[in-house]
């Protein structure tokens, strides 16, 4: 038997899931015997354990414990009993003399199935869940250092895709189950029961649980807000009857950008640029012309000069405890991340103070939390309004900066070097200079508080009625300070006028929620839970801008010191009024049913469209609790099938859009006097309403091998309709907003999500391996109006295809001879020569190739910009006092269009080149796919599948590798526990992508376009955790 079992295990892992299921259902080899030995299975607290499997070792004799934990089995002295049950460690007992009334006590194992999961407006046992819910292993995620909580979710739960970049304070994109809306796709966050908060200002140290609700059945209780998924977070509470416990967690680490773009040095650069000029029949630029007295010999390595070692630290002190009737938890947190770009940013610093308390007397329980956060963020100083010419983000600026520009030039105002298009051929921006001259920061202060009271109105005879009222208030003020002194970084990037923007934003959110819960188990078999509730939320955003120009030196940058000043302000108010209800019913711990309904009313829609209804239902079947289920717990401890269907809404759009409004600030001067005109400048969207997402979900949760192995898999299909499409309208309409919103879009997403884990919990060496994988298939069903395609950067979205596919011309190699050019179709009226890119003439006005390659007829879809699958892998292990963990995640099967790559591979212009360009086509070097240089090129840079223009995005990133050591208790007197650890974050990324992050943040309609994401640094940290 033992041998057999071992052979069985590896086989299990290789088998396809349906086959495995089938196998497990086969009852063939199981024989049932009438029992002679009677006993009880109990847990540590002496409560009966129902459904435990009792086997006689080496024999095919089985029994299952009843509701009272009792069992009877045919066993003899000398035989060994094996007892297993979901959520408990397997138990072995060698029988001495047979004694009836044997008490077997099981110990709880770490299996998460026994965990209580936080769900919408309540908690549920994981084993009773019928919806699609992922709970995040929060202790594991805390090993990743990030300024934003949502970043911790990357790779942790199937179906949750997190894209982020490496700038301190950068806000990641979180998408649950694909691209199902064209607007804001951020999930809905519920923190300690308060719906609709932002989680930017929380510390991971304070988090107790994090749960992701993915399907309609789990999320419909949040109705109109839930279409993008819901993430529920609870924070740490103190424990009752505990003396003050002090915890300190802290780490310090260094950040370093490990990726480098290979760019040409001075000599290579000048050679290439001169060649492009000669090929265009133009004179050399003075800076690059050896015959010119201005010939430049400066050789700046911009990446070396501009990237520095950053650092990060986090210190958290927790004070917690409680008396008989109360608990408290106080936490102070400091996070500081200094970025890797030379100059005034990016940096991010945050202070948090948080208090959670609870108190109870009799039927009343009250609690509150109070959270105060201050953060200071220096962003990279990128500003469209003064940096003319559509330049890339500053990281891109650094990479493409010309080597012949000096970093410093004392002759210039502010002392930084510059360039000019006449002298250098390029207006190359000195990224170090601009990032040092400009000051750009945001200070955020947030106060977030909640008070709740819960009354246990009825608690007898199994009837349990609770009423809870919860009030919350959340106020965030942000100050955006943007200072631009007079500066000179070359003529193109200069200003002799100093400017200051000192803006403020105040966001107020308030909510009141009342819920009534009832639960009872009837006749021991029918468990019923009922929830009804009501909620009102109010939000206000007050935006104020003040701007001043013309400051005299020495500068005192406050608004009043500017010579011309102006102010702007606007306010946006919204409200949401809702009712909701849910019934959970379970019969005999086998059949589970859940149904919910929510009605939302939103101020964002016209009176006739204000209200929306969001129903959902789900069923579950605990197959393994059926009497016919004979598979021993040592193989399948538990198996549950589940399915759900329901509707969710999304109303994340701007306020007041259903009304046409008058812009009363349209100025014009007569006789030099400024008059303000007023007219409708923006087209309205009178009929807008909710987006609706209907999700069908089916899956199973299995616990195998006595609880050591758990496996969940599910399939979902989500149909999003009435999507608010910012659908572009012709400019001939004469409005300023050329993409008004309307409920015209529809998108389907479907996918499979699998998560599995193996837990070894016994012995000195323990480990836990978990992995998850999710696929997503996306199909656009409608785009509104006549379904005109939506064009993004190098992308197109059309119906019946995936959102934001890469779109462009088809590469056919390089022209090698003039004859080839003559024989080929014309390309955009460009004057071509051998060495230029040849594109395919695909079609024309008559549906046939027309001898002209042009935008209108010759662009085709070139591949997907959305990963076909995302996955995460985590391994944690402990040996005696040592612990280690590795976490990796990745995505596969998608193509990236990189602005940085293209900027470095230009045929025209004079910014710096990739060293790949040394391999360009020349009459003597024709065996290459890099076109010739030509300063007049209007051909080669087009969106196309030219090699490198679209890159394979598949990657695997080693996110964290961590090693820790826990000292023995009281190693120093009074010290309860102490652990030290070292972590490497973003150790390495296996990727084809030549630029920085394959998981960059992007726009909806060009998911595969990397505008220039900031590289994620490699971080090496050491940390301490102590408690006394």
């Amino acid at each position, binding site marked *: 038997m033992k041998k057999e079992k071992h052979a069985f295990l590896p086989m299990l892992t290789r088998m396809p899931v349906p086959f495995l299921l089938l196998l497990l259902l086969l009852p063939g080899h199981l024989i049932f015997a009438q029992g002679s030995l009677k006993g009880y299975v109990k847990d540590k607290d002496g409560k009966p354990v129902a459904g435990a499997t009792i086997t006689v070792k080496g024999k095919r004799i089985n029994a299952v414990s009843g509701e009272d934990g009792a069992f009877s089995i045919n066993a003899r002295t000398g035989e060994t009993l094996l007892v297993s049950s979901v959520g408990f460690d397997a138990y072995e007992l060698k029988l001495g003399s047979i004694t009836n009334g044997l008490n077997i006590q099981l110990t709880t194992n770490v299996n998460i199935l026994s965990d209580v999961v936080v769900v919408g407006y309540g908690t549920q046992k994981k084993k009773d869940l019928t919806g699609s819910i992922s709970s995040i292993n929060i202790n594991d995620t805390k090993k990743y250092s990030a300024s934003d909580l949502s970043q911790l979710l990357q790779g942790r739960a199937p179906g949750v895709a997190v894209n982020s970049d490496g700038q301190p304070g950068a806000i990641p994109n979180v998408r649950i189950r694909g691209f199902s809306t064209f607007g804001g796709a951020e999930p809905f966050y519920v923190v300690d029961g308060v719906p609709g908060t932002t989680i930017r200002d929380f510390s991971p140290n304070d988090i107790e649980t994090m749960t992701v609700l993915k399907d309609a059945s789990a999320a419909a209780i949040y109705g109109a807000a839930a279409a993008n998924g819901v993430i529920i977070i609870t924070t740490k509470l103190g424990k009752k009857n505990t003396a003050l416990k002090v915890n300190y967690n802290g780490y310090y680490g260094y950040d370093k950008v490990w990726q480098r773009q290979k760019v040409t040095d001075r000599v290579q650069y000048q050679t290439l640029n001169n060649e492009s000029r000669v090929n265009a029949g133009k004179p050399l630029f003075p800076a690059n012309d050896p015959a010119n007295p201005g010939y430049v010999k400066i050789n700046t390595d911009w990446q070396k000069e501009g990237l520095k070692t950053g650092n990060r630290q986090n210190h958290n002190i927790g004070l917690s405890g409680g008396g008989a009737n109360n608990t408290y938890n106080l936490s102070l947190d400091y996070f500081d991340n200094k970025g890797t770009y030379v100059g005034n940013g990016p940096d991010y610093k945050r202070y948090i103070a948080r208090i959670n308390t609870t108190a109870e007397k009799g039927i009343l329980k009250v609690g509150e939390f109070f959270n105060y956060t201050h953060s200071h963020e220096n962003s990279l100083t990128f500003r469209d309004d003064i940096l003319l*010419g559509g330049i890339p983000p500053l990281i891109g600026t650094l990479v493409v900066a010309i080597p012949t520009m000096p970093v410093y030039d004392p002759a210039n105002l502010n002392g930084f070097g510059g360039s000019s298009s006449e002298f250098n051929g390029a207006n190359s921006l000195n990224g170090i200079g601009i990032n040092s001259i400009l000051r750009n920061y945001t200070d955020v202060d947030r106060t977030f508080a909640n008070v709740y009271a819960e009354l246990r109105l009825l608690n007898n005879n199994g009837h349990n009625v609770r009423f809870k009222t919860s009030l919350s208030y959340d106020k965030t003020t942000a100050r955006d300070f943007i200072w631009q002194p007079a500066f000179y970084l070359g003529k193109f990037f200069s200003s002799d006028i100093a400017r200051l923007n000192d803006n403020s934003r105040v966001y107020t959110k308030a909510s009141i929620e009342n819920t009534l819960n009832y639960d009872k188990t009837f006749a021991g078999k029918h468990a019923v839970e009922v929830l009804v509730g009501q909620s009102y939320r109010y939000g206000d955003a007050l935006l104020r801008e003040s701007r001043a120009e013309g400051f005299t030196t020495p500068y005192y940058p406050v608004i009043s010191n500017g010579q011309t000043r102006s102010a702007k302000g606007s306010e946006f108010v919204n409200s949401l*009024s809702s009712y909701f209800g849910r019934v959970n019913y379970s019969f005999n711990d086998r059949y589970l049913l859940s149904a919910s309904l929510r009605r939302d009313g939103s101020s964002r829609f016209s009176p006739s469209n204000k209200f929306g209804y969001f129903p959902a239902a789900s069923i579950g079947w605990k197959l393994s609790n059926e009497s016919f289920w004979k598979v021993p717990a040592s193989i399948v401890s538990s198996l549950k099938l589940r399915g759900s269907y329901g509707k969710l809404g999304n109303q994340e759009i701007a306020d007041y859009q259903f009304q*046409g409004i008058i812009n009363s600030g*349209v100025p014009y001067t007569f006789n030099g006097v400024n008059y303000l005109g007023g007219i409708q400048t923006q087209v309205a969207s009178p009929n807008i309403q909710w987006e609706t997402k209907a999700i069908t979900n089916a899956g199973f949760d299995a616990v195998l091998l006595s609880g050591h192995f758990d496996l969940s898999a599910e399939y979902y299909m989500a149909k999003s309709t009435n999507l608010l499409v910012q659908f572009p309208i012709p400019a001939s309409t004469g409005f300023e907003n050329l993409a008004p919103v309307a409920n015209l879009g529809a998108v389907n997403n479907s996918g499979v999500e699998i998560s599995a884990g193996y837990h070894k919990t016994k012995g000195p060496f323990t480990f836990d391996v978990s992995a998850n994988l999710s696929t997503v298939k996306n199909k656009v069903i409608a785009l509104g109006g006549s379904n005109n*395609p939506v064009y993004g950067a190098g992308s197109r979205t059309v119906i019946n295809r995936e959102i934001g596919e890469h779109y462009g011309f088809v590469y056919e190699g390089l022209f090698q001879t003039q004859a080839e050019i003559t024989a080929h179709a014309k390309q955009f009226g460009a004057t071509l020569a051998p060495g230029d890119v040849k594109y395919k003439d695909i079609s024309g006005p008559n549906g046939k190739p027309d001898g002209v390659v042009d935008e209108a007829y010759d662009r085709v879809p070139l591949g997907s910009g959305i990963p076909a699958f995302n996955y995460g892998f985590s391994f944690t292990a402990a040996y005696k006092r040592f612990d280690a963990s590795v976490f990796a995640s990745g995505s596969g099967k998608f193509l990236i269009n990189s602005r940085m790559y293209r900027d470095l591979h230009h045929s025209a212009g004079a910014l710096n080149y990739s060293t790949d360009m040394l391999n360009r086509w020349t009459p003597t070097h024709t065996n290459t796919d890099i076109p010739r240089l030509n300063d007049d090129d209007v051909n080669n840079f087009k969106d196309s599948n030219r090699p490198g223009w679209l890159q394979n995005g598949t990657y695997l990133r080693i996110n964290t590798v961590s090693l820790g050591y826990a000292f023995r208790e009281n190693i120093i007197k009074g010290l309860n526990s102490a652990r030290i650890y070292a972590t490497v974050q973003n150790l390495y990324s296996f990727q084809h992508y030549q630029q920085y992050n394959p998981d960059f943040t992007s726009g909806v309609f060009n998911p595969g376009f990397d505008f220039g994401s900031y590289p994620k640094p490699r971080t090496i940290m050491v940390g301490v955790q102590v408690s006394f």
Partner: protein
Amino acid sequence: MKKILYLFIVCCLLSTSCDKKLNLTNPNALTTAEYWKTKEQAYAACTSIYNALGVDGSYMRSFPGLTDSRGDDFTADSPWLDLVLTGQFIVPTTSDPVFWIWREFYLVVNRANQVIANVGKYDPAVLSSDEKNRILGQAYFLRGLAYYNLATTFKIVPVITEPISNPDDYFAATATEEVIWNQVYADLQKAATNLPISYDNVTGLDKGQKGRATKGAATGLLAKSYLYRKDYTKAGTELEKFLTGELKNIYSLMPDYRDNFKDKNENNAESLFEVQFTEGTGTDINWACDPSGSWKQVQAISVTYGMEGVAFSDYLPTRWIYNEYKKEKTVDGKSDPRLLVTIASYEPADNSTQAYGRAWFNPQTSIYPRKYTNDGVGNGKAFEGAAESGINYRVLRYSDILLMYAEVLNETGKTAQAYPYIQQVRTRANLPDLAVVKPAMTQAQMRDQLAHERALEFAIEGQRINDIIRWGWLYDATKLAELKTHDADFNTWTPGNEYLPVPQRELDLNKNLKPNPAN
């Protein structure tokens, strides 16, 4: 159990009261339904149409640049490829500045349509009929001007004359040239009827305001439109209004040609219509997007045209136009005074050794535009880095009326009668009497003479390419060859590409839209 029921009822009551809090008024702006009620609103709506003339794609920067650069008097010299390719007639259909021009003139159209539809319904008790006529007249004029510019730039475009409210109206179809030009005529005729000659003595909020459209502006532009379409008779009828009709003695040539391109003496006697730019208002530059009260009212032509070292120098005058000025000396043997107003050139003989108020700092052989630059203003601005200037853009000048009339006379067989009108313009430039220098020209000779006169008088004023188009020079082998010698940019011209292409974005979005010959 009863207690719970009560509690539940209280909850429900609470929540119904919450539903009432869902009707929130927008605290930021009036809704369209609440607008169009007061006199002030009618005026404000009219003002907002003008605003669209002063943004990037219209007269603030791109329209003059992309129009001038296609002429043989001007060529792009810029790292901004769109500008270069436009001059070479090969600008891609995806070009941003081309799109901006399209977008901005439709802003004018939309705002004018709103005014025409809504002010027309005003109660005379709120808005007197005189005021209503003036407001409608301005709206018609501005819409006519927008369609004139769209038609000369893109050849065929949709004609929209009603406010757009229904999403079905977003996708307007391309109209025929006939329809477009008839719309231009109709709008300008209504404008000419409704508008006053001057606002000096009107009764209303617009009293005394300069810069608003007048009867003269509408009549002049109507004449220019007929001329463009070679309807010489109708053009003549309109032009005669300035010489013998109700507009007689309203306009005259400024004694100093330079007064037409400075931020002083704006809206002067020679000016029929100009786009108003003013420095010193607002803090946000008026490039584009939804306007706001903090917008400046400046133009950026000065900084794109301004010379190397102080501005972007995106364009240069051609050698041909420079030499054209040198062809004829003034009566006192000097250079044509218009040369150094139009072109910044180092000319010690003409006492020109400075630029931007200091010693000439570029190669002495180089020439740069001066018209519409701050150098031309002579206001001592040493640097144009701020990308801002308050010089009004002159859309139509009286000298054009005179030369257009001369052209009408020549084209209608009255060549001899054309001399005095041309001479008025020449006299201001101190040039000798044409009747003496070149007497008894044939019609064909006179055509060439007029082309020469217009080139000198209107160089770098967004006129030349439209003259070249309407004279059919591009399709005349001799003339085309000449153009190629004037400006090498014409070497890459191919038939149809004298227009700017209909923006690709529009074609992609609007299936009712037709490409034009430049697409």
